[in-house]
């Protein structure tokens, strides 16, 4: 990398540098793609548009998307390690999604989706951060996300599942007072003859609780959403997912 054009030193924010060290991220070989990766990792809202636009002049949009996903995977790793906190992860996911939008515009169509995932945050619960991270990671990995948002009544989850026929449903709850809605959703889905993984997670939700009802798969962290969706898309049922990820 020529010293005169070492943008990495310009774009790194120092508070972040302190919190996560200074190493390079991702396996991208092009300089511009490396910058895209770093832009996502740094949550650099102000520069993503210019960087992705520049990259798209010479590079295939799918490759740019792959760089954006690399960045988000790095964020997910930093988060798993406790170096990143939710504010950073949310900003990074915004940056990534903005980049993906630009790439899709260039392609003239949306990425081909690997499957639909319906996500929601429990009724009575307005803390939808974990869900937002899961949404971003799922989108980054090529899934279509039907985002029902926060404080979602049981009925609404059931009708969304009937309408969109997802490969997986997720539920998030942060408050100890709201998580019991999940049990109701699971039993309603079963009664309707729906057989899919219902992945539940969030601060208030324990493995014991989620594995206590049929369909339930406990999600330890938002970063598990993409591998779980991949397993669901390849035909694994909720029992197989539970066996793989829980217990």
């Amino acid at each position, binding site marked *: 990398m020529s010293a005169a054009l070492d943008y990495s030193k310009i774009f790194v924010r120092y508070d972040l540098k302190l919190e996560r060290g200074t190493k390079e991220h991702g396996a991208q070989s092009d300089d511009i793609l490396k910058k895209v990766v770093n832009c996502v990792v740094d949550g650099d809202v102000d520069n993503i548009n210019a960087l992705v636009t520049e990259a798209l002049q010479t590079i295939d949009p799918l490759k740019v998307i792959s760089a954006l996903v690399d960045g988000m995977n790095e964020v997910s790793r930093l988060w798993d390690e406790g170096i990143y906190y939710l504010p950073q992860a949310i900003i990074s996911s915004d940056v990534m999604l903005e980049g993906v939008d630009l790439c899709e515009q260039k392609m003239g169509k949306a990425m081909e989706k690997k499957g639909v995932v319906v996500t929601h945050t429990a009724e009575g619960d307005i803390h939808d951060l974990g869900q937002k991270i899961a949404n971003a990671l799922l989108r980054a990995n090529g899934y279509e996300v039907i985002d029902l948002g926060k404080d979602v009544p049981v009925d609404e989850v059931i009708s969304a599942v009937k309408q969109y026929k997802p490969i997986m449903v997720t539920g998030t709850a942060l408050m100890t007072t709201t998580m019991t809605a999940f049990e109701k959703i699971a039993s309603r889905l079963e009664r309707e003859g729906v057989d899919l993984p219902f992945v539940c997670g969030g*601060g208030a939700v324990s493995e014991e609780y989620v594995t206590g009802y049929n369909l339930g798969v406990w999600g330890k962290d938002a970063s598990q959403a993409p591998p779980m969706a991949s397993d669901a898309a390849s035909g694994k049922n909720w029992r197989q997912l539970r066996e793989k990820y829980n217990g």
Partner: protein
Amino acid sequence: MGANLTGKQRVLNALQGKEVDRVPVLCVNQTATYEQMEKLQVFWPEANYKAEQMANLAFGAASVLGFDAVRVPFCQTIEAEALGCTVKDGGKEGLPSIRDHLYKIGEPPVMPDDFLQRGRIQELIKAVKILKELAGDNIFVIGGIIGPFSIAASLIGVTEILKSSYRKADTLEPYLEIGERAGTLLAKELIKAGADAICIEDMMASLDMISPKIYREVVAPWEKKQIDQINSLPLISHICGKLDAVMDDIAAMGVAGISVEPKVNAVEALAKLKQYNHPIALIGGVDAVQTLFSGTAEAVKAATIKAIEEGYAMIAPGCSIPPATPLERLKAMVEGSIACQK
């Protein structure tokens, strides 16, 4: 100490670092459960709106569960509603929640002149007065307020506050200021109404949500400002999550008790709290979901005994009690404390 203390004295002693006959049991967050509602024939949603029902259901923590303290309110929406947020009713099974956020970042927030007359504030104040009568000299009464950062989150939205807390913290100042003023005003009224302690729940300040740096720079100064104005009686801080990295910051604010989830390392926390020249009670020890809601009475009792051995000054669930938690598991906390009685 030979003589049996009243619940009130037991809690007070624990908060003041004095000797107790046995470790007090309480919950500094919401205490209502469906089984208590059946026993007392007082139900949500009424108990979230009307002083008498609110107090009667809250007193179940003492009369049904055998806890040493009682606490109102159940929900976390009282201040935000009085500031103008619309609240969605939670029906018989759930708590009221914030339906719409009031402001977009940048819009100047307004502190209503008649804040104390709005929403359910007067009902809450009246509920504390009724609870005091029910409690007499026997039971400790806790009034709950919401911390500045969490009220600000209700005003502008959780996602917005978290993003801004990281990149543009200065844009949050007006909402934090209103959040602090609202909680402080309410706390002063609850103190006048007879509360024995105030619990400040700042659940959005959890390290599940923000980084230690954001806690120190954005959240703590406003919590401190609030605490300095209402510390005429014991104050209890409750923040969810793994707080190890900020235990010192919370302790330094001048609270009498810190309520934590069991994911906090109690031994390390206690070592930190001992550094202060006044007693600070560590409160908690029983996981609200894994042990209380999904566990067994034996597991609850065992967790209680373990927490007492670790040095918790008061036994409590690490967070709000899930309302479907069975009575026998909640009572097992009291049994655990009695089993450790000297």
